[in-house]
């Protein structure tokens, strides 16, 4: 799905847990998420930490859209 959107000319950042799958299907900008059932958050964290994590990973994703890449690239996250 992301590939067809990118083929149409949009830069796409894929946020997912299984980075290898994203690479196999041809994603070019990737940010890893926490898990499959809760990609951007963690029910074991406090609501504040859950929010901080989501905010941070979305920021990394946004930055990736403004970054030129010439091959499939995983953008690292801190939280």
């Amino acid at each position, binding site marked *: 799905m992301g590939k067809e*959107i990118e083929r*149409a000319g949009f*830069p796409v950042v894929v946020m997912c847990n299984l980075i290898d799958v994203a690479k196999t299907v041809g994603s070019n900008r990737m940010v890893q998420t926490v898990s499959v059932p809760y990609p*951007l958050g963690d029910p074991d964290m406090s609501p504040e930490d*859950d929010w901080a994590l989501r905010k941070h990973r*979305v920021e990394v994703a946004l930055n990736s859209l403004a970054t030129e890449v010439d091959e499939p690239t995983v953008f690292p996250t801190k939280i």
Partner: protein
Amino acid sequence: MTKKAIHYINQFFGQVGGEEAADSKPIFHSELVGCSNMLNQMMPDVEVTHTIVCGDNYVTNHTDVALEEILGWLEKQEFDLFFAGPAFMAGRYGVGCGLVCKAVKERFDVPVITSMNEENPGVEQFKTEAYVFQGGRKATFMKDDMEKMAAFAQKIVKGEDLKPAAEEGYFPRGVRFEIPHPEGTMAADRVIDMLVKKLNGEKFLSELVIPKMDKIPPAPAVKDLSKMKIALVSSSGVVPVENPDRIQSASATKWGKYDISKLDKLPQGVFKTIHAGFDPAAMCAVPDRGIPVDAMRFWEKEGKFGKLHDYFYVTVGTGTTQAYAAKFGREIAADLKEAGVDAVVLTST
């Protein structure tokens, strides 16, 4: 009871003329023309009632008008099946057959059957839209190619079990059906057999063939993030709680588009995930964990990027075939283009 079929062919096989007649408009014959007669004779339980003849250039260059004429005429007919071609290696003919088959399938939801050579560009474009049988390179294969189409139509009307694409002889449509193993061999036994073959360097056939990937180069980065309109797209299955578009929980065949222009987050109880591929509790509790509207709003207000697109787009990723996923991607991309979106954040599970 005999079923009825209508057959589409081009100007050449429809005896209008060659290249000079390729601009000819659709002609509707109630007396069968040319190869339609042969097709008709091949099927004891199907009667071909009409032949539609249309120029290849006309249908490929004036597609909307041509399809409107053809569909408009078909509205007044009774038919249970639709045939087009065979188109062999003739590119425009193949694309024409594909265009007509796709439109007929969408409007009337009847089985649509055509045939093309693997090199015909119509195959790649339409193999997921119709039964495109693997045909010969040129018209000397007319009889062989039609026999395949006819035999398959006979199976459909008699309600016989349809086999996978490779066995029936058409190009895989990217559709999966579950069937019990014919010999009753358990999955565990089958997978061990495959593993042993793999270890021995022998050939084996996967039951879940992953189509080959084509790579696309990365799109250029956006120049000034603070001016950009960004859309959220997701395969997480987060939808309004009533799931208004009835998106399937697995093996989705559709996507939805939902208004978030007045929302700063996706509230629990208003949105939920219908994804059947994982425990939905954590995402239902905080739907933003699947589609981060709250974090996007935050960064939008911070001025990090220009504007969050007023809608998010979503489907369910589990069991969904690549053919459907690609189709969703193309459809969503067209919508994004119209909305003036610059870039996409796609969350998947």
